[in-house]
Each structure stands twice: as C-alpha cells, then as structure tokens.
C-alpha cells in the first residue's frame, strides 16, 4: 500500500469569495421561490400586463406546480396559518 506524504499534498485553494457569494445569493433566492411560490406569482400578477410578465408568469406557474407536487408550498401555507392562529395577527 502506498503511503502519501502529507507534505506532497497541494494545499487546497481558498474558496473564491465571489463564487461562494453568488452561489449563496442565487441558491437562497431559488429555494425561497420554490418554498413560497405563490409570492412570486402574486407579485407578477400585480404588475402591468406585458409580454415579459406573461412569460415570467408562465415560468412562475411551472415552479408553483413543482412546489405543490413535492409538497413544500403546503408547508409554508400551514406554517403561516399556524403563526396567524398563535399570534392573533390579521390574516392575509
């Protein structure tokens, strides 16, 4: 069995801070869109009608379907309802 001398190992390059920041920002946003899909749909629906909005709405609709199929959209709704019931704040 060949042993590796630790001194032969090249030091790992430090993570590129810009790459890490970009991954954190976009993955966080993507996860939020998937977890609370109705927020994006509602926001897009409030905008003035234009071709970009229609395309974006179609995309948001697909995301919402995916979110509902895997069950995460319902988790947010139930958590929100539970919070409203416990806190006594005005329902949406």
């Amino acid at each position, binding site marked *: 069995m060949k042993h590796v001398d630790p001194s032969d190992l090249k030091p790992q390059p430090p*993570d590129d801070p810009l790459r890490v920041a970009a991954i*954190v920002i976009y993955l966080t946003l993507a*996860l939020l869109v998937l977890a609370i899909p109705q927020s994006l749909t509602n*926001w897009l629906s409030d905008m003035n009608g234009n071709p970009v909005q229609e395309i974006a709405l179609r995309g948001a609709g697909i995301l919402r379907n995916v979110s509902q199929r895997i069950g995460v959209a319902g988790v947010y709704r139930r958590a929100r309802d539970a919070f409203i019931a416990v806190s006594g704040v005005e329902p949406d």
Partner: protein
Amino acid sequence: MLFPTIEFAVFFAVVFPITWLLNDHNTWKKLFLVAASYYFYAFWRVDFTLLLFASSLLNYLAALVIGRLQSRAWRLAVLWIAVAANLGLLGYFKYYNFFVAQLINGFDAVGLKVDVGFIELPLPVAISFFTFHALSYIIDVYRRALKPTTSLLDILFYISFFPHLIAGPIVRANKFLAQTVGRRDPANIRLGQSVFLIIGGLFKKVIVANYLSTGFVDGVFRDPTAASSLDLVLGMYAYALQIYCDFSAYTDIAIGIANLLGYEFPQNFNYPYRAVSVQDFWRRWHMSLSSWLRDYLYIPLGGSKFGTFATYRNIMITMALGGLWHGASWAFLIWGALHGAALVIERALGLAGEAAAKQRGPLATAFGWLVTLQFVCLAWIFFRAPSTDAWLGYFSTMFAGARWTTTMTPFVAVIFVLGALSHVLPPRWLEALDKRYDRASLPVKVAVPFVAIYLIAIAAPGGIAPFIYFQF
C-alpha cells in the same frame, strides 16, 4: 423600492452579477451602477431623478472651481454659493411650507393678513441625505482635504449609489471616492457579516418594527389622551425600539448590500440604548450623521475653541439644526434642542468626555445609563407625535397616571422582548457567528439565509410599511 420586497430581490439579482462582470472595466461598471441607482430612485418618482442629477452636477462643477481657485476668499465665496444652492434646494422642498405657515401665523397674531402661497410638491425622497453627501464633498474640497475629481461619473456614482441613497449611512466623499478607482477586490467580500447584517435587518424591520408599529405604537400615538398612562409609558419605550429597529435595519442592509458589491460603508449604529450619557448616545446613534454635524457644522461654528459660552451656543445650534434636518416642524426642533440642552448640562456638570467616563464607577455608570435611556425615550415622543396637541396630550395623560391598564397584546410583548434582545446580545457573539458562518460548508452557508428569510416570511405582516427615515 423597499429593501424587504421581491422587487428589490429581483433588482439585486440582476445588479450583482453585472457589477462583478464589469469589475475589470471600471468606467462601465460605474456607469452601470449609476444607471441602476437612478432606476432604483425612479421607483419613487421619475422626475426627481432630474433633481438628483442637477444636485450632482452643481456640486461637481462647484468643486472643480473651488479646486482651481488659489485665493482663499474666492474659494470661500464659491463654497458659500454652492452651499446656499444646496440648502436652497433642500429648503424649498422641505422647509418652504413650514416657514410660510409660521409667517402667516406670525402676521395673523398681530392682525395682519399676508397672502403667500404654499407649494404642492411632495418632498423628494432622500433629499436630506443626498444634500449632506454633496455638502461633505464640496466642503472637503474647500478645506483641501480632498482633490476635486474631474470625473462627473464619480460624483454621480458617489451621490446616487443605491444602497446609501435613500436613508444613509452618510458616506464621506474621501472614503467613497477612493473606492471608485480601479477594480474592487472580491476577497474583500465578508459574506458572513453581510449575510447576518441583511438577515438581522430584515428581522428588525419586517418583524420587530412593523409589528410594534401596527400592533401598538400607532394606536397609542393616534389619540394619546384616550390611552391609559401605562400604555403611554409602554408606547414610549416601544417607539424607541421601533425607530431603532427600523432605521438600523435599513443601514445594516445597506452596508451588507454594498459589501456584496465590493464597497465599504461606515458603521451607523453601535448599541445606542446602552449609552451611559447623551454624548455617548450620539456616538452610537446615527453615527454618520452625528460625525457629519460635528465636522461640518459644530467645528466650523468654532467648536469648543472660544470659551464656555460659545461652546454651549455651538452645541445648541448644531443640535437644533440637526433636529430640524429630520423634518420641518417645531417638534423636531424641540427634540434637537432638548438633546443640545442635555449635552450642555453634561458638559457643565463635568460628565462629558473620555476622562469623565473613565472616572465613573459601576454604580455611576448604571445610573448614567438609566437616566440617559429615560431622557432619550422621553425625547422620542416629540419625534413621533404628529402635532403639538398630540405631544402635549401625550405628556399630560402619561404623567397624570390615571389608568394603569394596557392594550399591549402578549404577541406584541414578545416582539418587544425580541427587539430588546438586539441590545442585550454581546457583540462578540455576533462576531463569533460571522466567523463560524465563514468557516461553514457551502450547504450550511445557503441554508442559514434561506431558513432565516423563510421564517421571517412566515411571520411577516401582510404589507411592509416604508422605513421611517425615508421621510427625512
């Protein structure tokens, strides 16, 4: 466009990559960021972007002229013209109606009628902030503390950069312009700090400030004479917490956003309700404004150089004008003057300064904290009350001690305690959290902001109120 909205998330998701893609083409990057900042500002009102541009152009030209002139007298003359133009613009939009009302009331009191019209234009958002940015630039150029830049783009960028544009922090020209030269180093991104500033800011604004406001404070201040004394006492503390959480949230998010784009902003709050004197409070509250007032108003007035009386006078003028900067009303003026008077009393009693702080024992420090906190919270009543009748009614009902029942719900009480935690948690815990985050694996780095924002979204109120400091 408010920070805690989907609009802003989409806006930032577009601005972030383009900014860094243009990092090796600095002029294009600045052009892009200026365009993005004007787009951000246009969300409030498109025509006020012309005002923002005119202010930037005026100060750019004034600084160039001041920089070229050799004669001190001529430089001073141009500076005064530029300062007058800046303050004239601010005065027209922000103070004109107030002074006209005082004029009419004054003449009316002696039986004379004057016919002066009011202007019916809304106050341009951020005018106080961008005017102070511009003034710091031309005054520094006049003092030869800063060379005037020949690049109009740099000045447009400095004054309009969207993270600080609406409600600060007030970034000094010399600190910011130094960052506009060449590419920004992505290694300076402090992801942990930025993530926690943004998450903390969202929590303070969306949860604490909003629920304190809508769930309790608004009701108490709407008709103070109908509230119980206990509600008025609690309302005073709740508003103190609300305004801190609201304003510090904005600047925390601004600092975090700017850092993600590669730019550094100064700290604006440092546990202000831990202050043990009013002087200490102003070293911790809206630090970028208090240092601005010190450097560009108090010191030019003579500071503490010309004897006791002149020092007290300069403090009073600085604080009264600082109060008036927040808005055109007697209440803001009184609020500023009260703080000025407190600073004068502290000086007169020998309680101000580093030496006095070092001599204080633990008991005196605790007493100083208690007195300062009560003073600051009482003074906030002037800041929040919508009219003279309202603050008169607030004080008279509160001190009458008529009823000791409360309408504060258990939920609002929990929010109050959560907001107060922002002053209880030791700073070293937050620093340790930043460091642990920076050392964490990538999935953890993503999970932390996702879970935090998800939880905030679950508990968020239906609509987000604008930040309090937008009106200034």
